[in-house]
């Protein structure tokens, strides 16, 4: 029965995707993309990926829409020119789709417990996590410890992307010519959203911290928490004006966060070497190897959370500052 729900959601997703490509109004495309993100998150949840669904929720519901809309405000809302070589592109895409669909017939059955994916390292992770790390959430264990090197790479990619956006948008003559005081006031004249937003912001922050530190026991972790905390502060910036948000957390502090997160991560890794283990081997961090692993995961998740918060907020402010 649940498979049928998934199939229905996927059908809605395909319809949304086609509508996104067909519309010429970019604002509508962004709205439909928000809907697509909701469907995707629902599907992740149906496919047992609670952590992934939480990430998609934290990113897709707020930050993605905010970023696309601020980019649209700086560029234009409509597509002007017609598509190039419609027939040719459609043929290429259709042929590729048919090839891919043909290939699916050789795939292992959906949900097959004996598929190659399921029999490689995954059983080992599931079996050994209680023994080596002793936390309930295997996803966090894999993310933080077994594949910590991978995660370090991802954190550095996020870091680099943030630096890239700051380089692109952080300097030079801004485009807009709006009166400064109008821009600065945000939505301060809209009383009802402002009051409600003020009620919600502390709870979102609290929830972000809960997700950060509860990540070992339930769905959550640094990536989700960073996005949720950034969303709370973006909400504040939308309500009170971007300048107020910048005076609460200045750009310098944000830059510090962006740099501090990866540094904390690397420091934990190097501490492992100094204490006589391998790079990112947390077992040596404490006299008891299980406690060491838990401590290491806690620290690197904090590093991840700090990086993601800093990068997402810096990106938001870079786009917002461009509109002034």
């Amino acid at each position: 029965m649940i498979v049928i729900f998934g199939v229905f959601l996927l059908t809605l997703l395909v319809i949304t995707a086609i509508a996104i490509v067909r519309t010429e109004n970019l604002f509508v495309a962004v709205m439909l993309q928000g809907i697509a993100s909701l469907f995707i998150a629902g599907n992740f949840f149906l496919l047992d990926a609670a952590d992934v669904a939480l990430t998609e929720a934290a990113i897709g519901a707020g930050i993605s829409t905010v970023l696309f809309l601020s980019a649209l405000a700086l560029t234009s809302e409509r597509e002007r020119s017609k598509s190039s070589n419609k027939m040719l592109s459609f043929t290429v895409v259709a042929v590729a789709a048919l090839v891919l669909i043909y290939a699916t017939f050789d795939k292992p059955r959906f949900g097959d417990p004996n598929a190659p994916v399921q029999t490689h390292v995954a059983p080992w992770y599931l079996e050994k996590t209680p023994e080596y790390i002793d936390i309930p959430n295997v996803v966090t264990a894999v993310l933080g410890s077994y594949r910590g090197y991978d995660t370090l790479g991802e954190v550095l990619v996020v870091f680099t992307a943030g630096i890239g956006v700051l380089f692109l948008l952080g300097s030079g003559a801004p485009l807009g010519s709006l009166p400064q005081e109008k821009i600065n006031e945000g939505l301060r004249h809209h009383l009802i959203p402002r009051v409600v937003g003020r009620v919600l912001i502390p709870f979102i922050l609290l929830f972000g911290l809960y997700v950060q530190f509860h990540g070992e026991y339930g769905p959550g972790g640094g990536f989700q928490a960073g996005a949720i905390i950034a969303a709370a502060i973006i909400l504040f910036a939308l309500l009170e004006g971007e300048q107020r948000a910048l005076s609460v957390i200045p750009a310098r502090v944000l830059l510090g966060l962006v740099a501090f997160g990866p540094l904390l991560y690397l420091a934990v890794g190097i501490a492992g070497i100094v204490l006589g283990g391998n790079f990112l081997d947390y077992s040596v961090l404490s006299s008891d190897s299980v406690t060491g692993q838990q401590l290491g995961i806690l620290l690197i998740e904090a590093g991840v959370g700090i990086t993601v918060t800093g990068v997402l907020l810096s990106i938001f402010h870079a786009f917002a500052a461009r509109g002034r």
Partner: protein
Amino acid sequence: MSMLLDILSWVLLTLGGLSILIGGIGALRMPDLYTRMHAASVTDSMGAILVLVGIMLQAGLTLATIKLIAILLFLLISSPTSSNTLASAALLAGTRPFEEAHQSDDEGKE
């Protein structure tokens, strides 16, 4: 007693599902933006209350119930605010109520 609770929660869940469905039909069939918004937002809150209270009765006194209460509270605060915000934005941009809906995609411009 638990039998009674079960029946009550089933009734609530069914009513909630019905209310959600009515809201969906209303949002699709109503003639203009404001009536659609009315259909959607009222049944949104009603459906959320009915469904979540229905689940709460099933969950009993656990952590889950507390989380459900939190979800319900936040939904009850934020969902009507969103509708209000949206309606006032539409009104400010010049969408008139009670007209035949024939605005273009980018109405409110010029």
